[in-house]
């Protein structure tokens, strides 16, 4: 070997790839990756997301029901008299109602998540369970109080006055039952169908459950009606109410 000094390699600043920018910048958890994301970075943007979500959610539900109605209308126009056809129509109705109900719950999961995000600063993600949907079916003609305690945070008694079988689905955020709540009139997709206006929701307390009272007029057309439940103080949605009036 010659007397020349062996050439050494330079010292490198780093040897590994940066896999997570949030780690690099020391932002623990959720907000790092989304520092520039409008949905997470400002209340204004969040409100926008919320507004869009509400709008989209209603569009989904409306679309379900509108298409179902169209299908039923077309079937009626064909003057089917077969019992087989009637059975199919019944199946179709049930399916459409089920789809609407399912998707309402799905949509509300999203809505709750967005509202939850708006209500708190971005921190480490934590798990929390929302109460199970509360449901009651009233048989006519009676007033049927039904109490549900989905968990300690959402105790609601449902009182329904209806002339026909009526299915009520209530979906409420945790601890919302003790807040001052407003429930809007329930609406069907078709704007020509009258709304269900006789509905109230009284806040509960540590001792008493919240009480939902609903009165269904005898001439109310069968179908699915939906409404948002709003926290009176924050004006944020905290739940949904879905009512299905079954034809007899």
């Amino acid at each position, binding site marked *: *070997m*010659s007397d020349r000094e*062996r050439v*050494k*390699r*330079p010292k*490198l600043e*780093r*040897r*590994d*790839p940066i*896999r*997570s920018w*949030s*780690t690099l910048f020391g932002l*623990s*958890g959720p*907000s*790092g990756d*989304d520092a520039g*994301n409008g949905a*997470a970075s400002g209340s204004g943007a969040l409100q926008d*997301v919320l507004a869009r979500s509400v709008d989209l*959610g209603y569009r*989904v539900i409306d*679309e*379900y029901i509108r*298409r*179902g109605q169209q*299908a039923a209308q*077309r079937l009626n126009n*064909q*003057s*089917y*008299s*077969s019992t087989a*056809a009637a059975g*199919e*129509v019944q*199946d*179709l109705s049930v*399916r*459409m109602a089920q*789809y609407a109900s*399912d998707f309402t719950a*799905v949509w509300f*999961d*999203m809505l*709750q*998540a*967005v509202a*939850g*995000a708006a209500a708190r600063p*971005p921190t480490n*993600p*934590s*798990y*929390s*369970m*929302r109460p199970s949907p509360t449901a009651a079916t009233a048989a006519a003609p009676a007033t049927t109080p039904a109490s549900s305690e989905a968990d300690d945070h959402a105790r609601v008694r449902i009182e329904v006055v209806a002339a026909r079988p009526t299915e009520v689905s209530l979906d409420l955020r945790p601890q919302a039952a003790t807040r001052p709540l407003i429930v809007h009139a329930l609406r069907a997709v078709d704007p020509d169908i009258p709304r269900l206006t006789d509905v109230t929701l009284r806040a509960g307390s540590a001792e008493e459950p919240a009480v939902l009272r609903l009165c269904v007029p005898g001439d109310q057309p069968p179908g699915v009606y939906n409404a948002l439940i709003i926290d009176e103080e924050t004006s944020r949605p905290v739940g949904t109410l879905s009512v299905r009036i079954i034809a007899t």
Partner: protein
Amino acid sequence: MAAAFELSRPEHRGRYEITVYQMGWRLGGKGASGRGPADRIEEHGLHLWMGFYENAFRLMRECYTELQRDPERCPIADWRDAFTPIPQIGVADVTADGRWIPWTGIFPPTAGLPGDPLPNGQRWTVADYMTRTASLLRTLFETLLSSETSDPPPVAETKAADGASSNTIVDAAARLLRYGELATLAGLIEGARLLELMVGSVTSFEENAILRFLDAIASNARMALESRLEGDPTLRRVWQVMDLTFATLRGEVRFRIASDPRGFDAIDEYDCREWLLLNGASESSVNSGFMRGLYDLGFSYEDGDVSRPRIAAGQALRSMVRSFFTYRGAFFWRMHAGMGDVVFAPFYEVLRRRGVRFAFFHRLESVRLADRAHLKDGESPYVETLEFDVQAEIKDGAEYQPLVDIDGLPCWPAQPDYTQLVDGQRLERERWAFESFWDRRKVRPKTLRVVDDFDFVILGVGVGAIPHVCKDIVARDPRWRAMVDHVKTVATQAFQIWLSEDMEALGWPGPATTLSGFVEPFDTWADMRHLLDRERWPHRPRALAYFCSVLPDGAGWDDRSCREYPADQREHVRRAAVQFLNRDIAHLWPKAVRKPGEFRWELLIDPTAANAPSADVKSEARLDSQFWTANVNPSDRYALSLPGSTTYRISPLDDTYDNLVVAGDWTACGFNAGCVEAAVMSGRLAAHAIAQSPALEDIVGFDHP
């Protein structure tokens, strides 16, 4: 080549004197190709470039720009002459009754071209990918809705009335139910839109709410689709992709990949299919043609055993998100000549112009470290000597000229030019196999010494060769030992056939296709008809097809004394090709067989035949005129990304040995999969280790989840 290209850039002002030592007569390793009889292109296998190969395309484009070929004289003067988008790709699915049905599609072109400058500060995040995945989901739903909307005839067309048959009424009712399902799909589309909103800021939301949301959408979709999946193969395939997408999103949330400092590496202990199953994917989805195609493209079968598909989930996801969401121009790009002609000949020419020297016919035998006792205090271990076998001397001490001119295009021949070699006639007569691991003949040994002959070593051999050429290091260093134990490789096999009838006449209509997920032993087929323009046949073939797959290891695969092993494996490939053409090809080319189990061997064109293609030879002996290969040399073996193995890879930036830098697609280069892009990234990292250039931020995709 990438490292040499970086270190020889004019910006370095000739600071680095570079010599490339190459076994045999051609560059390229696994990517090498040669021109055989009729100047036909003979490859190691099928090589495609993906649209996200940003580093590879960038260097390739710079190379062609610097080359400044004359388009009047050279048919491939510009990189756009060299690469064109692949119009159609596909996977094959097997039906319950054993038939193989191709499923082809076209990925839409995207803005920009691979290798174009990226926006400053470009960053990829898991959250961003999740948003894009959700968007993909929506596109799939919309695809379904579109087909549904156009499919059912208007109900009014059915004149059902009193007295109508019950079948008519039921049919009409069934259509109405499809409207109901259509309404569901419409709802799901909106659901997917909401999903985009949610995962766009996933880390801000309660994860269980997201998971429930995904589950609800998935269950709705299943309800709408399952009843029709059995009778509708197209719908079933779309659903399988959707199911896999749901599972991916669900898994990314469950495993908190978005906030994990390891990025996708966090799930590299899992096999990809296993991880998808864990996250709710169905068995049929993870065994679908789509998934098999992904495994096939990466030869992801441990020990070449197709019953053992395995790939690290994190790297698989990284590959998928890069492939689907970051491709530019086209999803796949194909080369318009052999890979050697399109890639390595231009690099060779540019590097020669820059003053890089090439020492062909040098087989590396040993990398030896300096004796520990000779190290000074605080001095890192280093390589002291490199031992080569010189396989042939060049006449008159001249420089070997490796390229041949074919219609103006510099190409690599499939055989060395013996006329340039000392005693060349004897070497040819004795059939010296210069690229064979098992042929150890040499004309003399040669030893290079640190300081006297080199300062730095960039070790660019395949990882399969490491145990043989780095015995010293592997014996002393537990990390290297663990690397060679865990970063496993697999042999591959390929064959090419030239046919006298075009694809339509063989029963495959439509554009040229690249298809994976097909039946073993050759799961991947590519229609390479575009290469016929580059070859010089006395009677031009009408079709050209490449097939490839893994090759199971036989006894003696790593035993250098087992000299008959390469020939045995080559014969194994030939027999597999015969069986495949007789038994399986009819699934794709129904008119290529005379009857079930009997391939029309007369379709194959013999390049050495002086006359027009003859129908006389109808036996499988005709295959002998075609090209096939068993890639069993250790350095030719494909590096796998097995679950739990990526952590054992060693980075080109590792400085354990002061003057030794590793390079290749088997290193920890940020994209830990066997491909051209990984090899180029690794080469650029190797250059950075020595010259601190290029900047790590300039190596696209190195900093990536």
